[in-house]
């Protein structure tokens, strides 16, 4: 195993024509027993396993993934990273995640290509602007960087955008988080996988969980397509398949799984060096290092596990993008796909214990999970290891749906539910 990537390992391997790079992670056979099993090998699951191994002394850890790691929503999102959420509880959790992003490539010894090119949320109505000023102020009170921009500020930064008065919904301003940006979604999965593997975590792919065994209300084992695995602690991080997993434990969740679509254009010369999001006309866009415009839409209204949605969503989304950037009307779209997002009634995640002892769920991230990848793993590792939530995820328990303590982040989520 290549222990450490460095200029020296690069030079050494250049001498042997790059034919001797070792696997970035092992492919071990599942053991009959582990101390902790994480179900779901996406970014959040792998981050959870990594921080479990790094920060706690829980013994043997495995990640089981029914397909290939990062093949679910981690491989299908529009890569935006930010922490500009409204309520204290959400702001602190996403900001913790952003701070982890800032050191992540060094921490994992893997380039996750985190580019802090800023994120703009546009306002097109007076109420949009009131909400923007409110959220921006709330961010700054929580120590999170935020500015409010005028249309001229926006035009100076983004020459291709139309801030003129002839638009159906003219741009009146924007919030801007300078420390936000984008990251390479596959790389964060691979980076966490490699780092977790080096700490002894077994990453087991092509291993589908088919049942959760309980005795006296406590987890005893998982049934999988590659045999049973005894364990007393299971952390389920299965995103769109969370309800399927919950049903195996006899539980229902306040979650609905919807298609969320995205698309990329042909590569273009650099035309957009920040991230633009608009709630009102509805779309969000950035330009990747390959030059592709990366564009995301709102969810399809019906529930769906097919990783695809209806074309009407794309049509509406592209209409919004062309409204903002008229010169993009002639760009050709290269590829379009969908994920399965587990949407929660208050657009906030569920991270915590369940009525079953030893069974923990980290889900409900809906349309906004990618930005939280490291932060989610950080707090979920604590929750599983200590059998108690971290202070940053205590408010995001299942209980809030019975006490009424919902935390409504639909506005900051920025993606139509």
């Amino acid at each position, binding site marked *: 195993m290549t222990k450490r990537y460095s200029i020296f390992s690069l030079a050494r391997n250049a001498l042997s024509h790059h034919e001797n790079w070792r696997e970035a992670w092992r492919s071990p056979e599942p053991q009959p027993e582990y101390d902790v099993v994480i179900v779901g090998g996406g970014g959040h699951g792998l981050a959870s396993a990594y921080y479990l191994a790094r920060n706690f002394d829980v013994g043997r850890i495995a990640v089981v993934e029914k397909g290939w790691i990062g093949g679910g929503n981690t491989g299908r999102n529009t890569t935006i990273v930010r922490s500009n959420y409204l309520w204290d509880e959400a702001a602190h959790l996403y900001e913790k995640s952003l701070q982890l992003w800032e050191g992540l490539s060094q921490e994992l010894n893997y380039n996750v290509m985190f580019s802090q090119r800023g994120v703009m949320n546009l306002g097109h109505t007076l109420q949009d602007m009131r909400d923007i000023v409110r959220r921006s102020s709330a961010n700054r009170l929580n120590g999170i960087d935020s500015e409010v921009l005028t249309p001229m500020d926006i035009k100076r930064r983004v020459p291709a955008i139309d801030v003129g008065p002839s638009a159906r919904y003219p741009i009146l301003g924007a919030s801007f988080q300078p420390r936000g940006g984008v990251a390479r979604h596959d790389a964060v999965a691979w980076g966490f996988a490699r780092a977790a593997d080096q700490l002894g975590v077994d990453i087991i792919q092509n291993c589908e969980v088919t049942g959760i065994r309980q005795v006296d209300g406590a987890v005893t084992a998982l049934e999988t397509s590659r045999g049973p695995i005894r364990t007393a602690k299971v952390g389920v991080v299965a995103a769109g398949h969370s309800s399927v997993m919950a049903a195996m434990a006899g539980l229902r969740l*306040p979650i609905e799984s919807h298609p969320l679509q995205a698309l990329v254009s042909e590569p273009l010369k650099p035309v957009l060096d920040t991230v633009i999001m608009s709630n009102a006309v509805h779309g969000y866009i950035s330009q990747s290092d390959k030059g592709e415009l990366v564009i995301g839409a709102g969810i399809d209204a019906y529930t769906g596990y097919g990783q695809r949605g209806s074309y009407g969503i794309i049509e509406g989304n592209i209409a919004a993008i062309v409204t903002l950037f008229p010169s993009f009307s002639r760009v050709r779209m290269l590829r379009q796909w969908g994920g399965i997002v587990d949407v929660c009634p208050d657009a906030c995640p569920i991270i915590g214990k369940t009525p079953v002892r030893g069974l923990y769920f980290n889900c409900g991230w809906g349309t906004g999970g990618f930005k939280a990848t490291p932060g989610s793993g950080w707090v979920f590792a604590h929750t599983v290891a200590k059998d108690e939530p971290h202070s940053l995820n205590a408010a995001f328990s299942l209980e809030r749906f019975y006490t009424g303590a919902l935390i409504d982040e639909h506005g900051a989520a920025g993606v139509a539910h």
Partner: protein
Amino acid sequence: MLQIECPWCGACDQSEFSYGGEAHIARPKTPADLSDQEWGDYLFNRENPKGWHREQWCHTAGCRRWFNAVRDTVTSRIKAYYQMGAIPPEEDVR
């Protein structure tokens, strides 16, 4: 673009319809008698199946009536339509 068969108007484009979520969630007749757990369960918890789903649709851009459908949430194939208030066509679709 799904083709959805409105029981009154026949097969129409999906864009004419609005989605109404999981069917057969009966509003409790005496909410004040429910515990917080029961009320929260009614308000928020859902089956969210991977597979056949009994759900509600409204022909918003047509006759504007509501009806139920049984749709596979993986393939989006709809195998049955039935009226609001009717018993679902199959005993066990899950």
